[in-house]
């Protein structure tokens, strides 16, 4: 299974970036081999609006089944729901820690966004 994780750096030992739309990187991690692909999100970091929507589209295009992040706003959450991608908020530690926590059942999927939209 492919798991998308927001990351402050471009490798699997980097810390999870708590922001979703404006995360520095998004890593697409294979849950069995821990191989990963790095998506550079810098274009979205400075987006005026719609960063979450764009990041969610990227994750969906990579056919990830789950997203692990810190905070997910309402618009991004709507896109993830439409794309049938589970969202686990409150991920922390390294990207690897977050993936392990999810596999071990310690990072539950949320059924709603956990932050307000940006104005």
């Amino acid at each position, binding site marked *: 299974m492919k798991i998308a994780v927001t990351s402050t750096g471009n490798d699997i030992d980097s810390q999870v970036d708590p922001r979703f739309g404006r995360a520095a990187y998004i890593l697409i991690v294979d849950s069995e081999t821990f191989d990963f692909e790095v998506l550079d999100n810098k274009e979205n970091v400075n*987006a005026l*609006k*719609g960063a979450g*929507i*764009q990041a*969610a*589209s990227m994750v*969906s295009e990579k056919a990830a089944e789950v997203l692990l992040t810190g905070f997910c706003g309402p*618009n991004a959450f*709507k*896109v993830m729901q*439409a*794309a*049938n991608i589970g969202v686990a908020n409150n991920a922390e530690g390294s990207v690897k820690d977050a993936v392990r926590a999810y596999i071990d059942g310690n990072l539950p999927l949320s059924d709603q966004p956990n932050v307000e939209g940006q*104005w």
Partner: protein
Amino acid sequence: MIISIASGKGGTGKTTVATNLALSIDSDVQLLDCDVEEPNAHLFIQPTFNHTETIYTPVPEVDQKKCNLCGKCNEICQFKAIVVIGETVLPFPELCHSCGGCMAVCPEDAITETGRELGIVQKGFCNGIQLIHGKLRIGEAMAPPLIRAVRAFTRPDQFTIIDAPPGTSCPVIAAMKDTDFVLLVTEPTPFGLNDLKLAVGAVKLLNIPAGLVINRSDIGDNKVQEYAREVDLPILMEIPFDRRIAEAYSRGEMIVEVLPEYKEKFHRLYHNIINLAG
């Protein structure tokens, strides 16, 4: 003739100048309160509103059955307001800037227009002044289309005063653009000066003749006066600090009614504007 009254800084006295100027002109005058996030000229003019209409901006609605998921709408939208995801198209109407691009590029005619409520426009009349203002819907982020809806009521045969919002961003530009003259209002403080410079920058970009009113002109420092001289911005009026003005304002009263000598001053301001605007 249409003039706009603007300032970089908030609270300098735009509405005070706009309303008192309107009341000092002998002929019929229109006052358009384009500070649609917080209109308040009506508190001074106290008109009876006899017309209210709701203003909408077009946003896309998608017929999912017609859509072939080609993604062209997604590509053209600069605001991520329409996204193709999996087997669905998701519009985000609150992010839409109403450009119509998605509709134009859709090969299947799957997108039609529906409306997002921007707010209301109200018209009223009092003492020879026709007051028109917009009130932005709470939660709505886009003021410029509502400002344009207020300005659509401009009557070219009348002298029209636009009370602009503070700042120098899109709503201010929407209020000042295509006016014949911009009257800037500031106060002689470092804050007033800083924001006046920003406002002058915006006015220069729009290439509109401008003049300055300095409110509470005898407090603070004289850097605003020096700056005005440097950039050839004519100072058309100075309103000294006066407790009686502050008291009148605090009761929602007009300067020209409480201190009748100001009627002549505002009258002169009007004629100066006419001369400068050509």
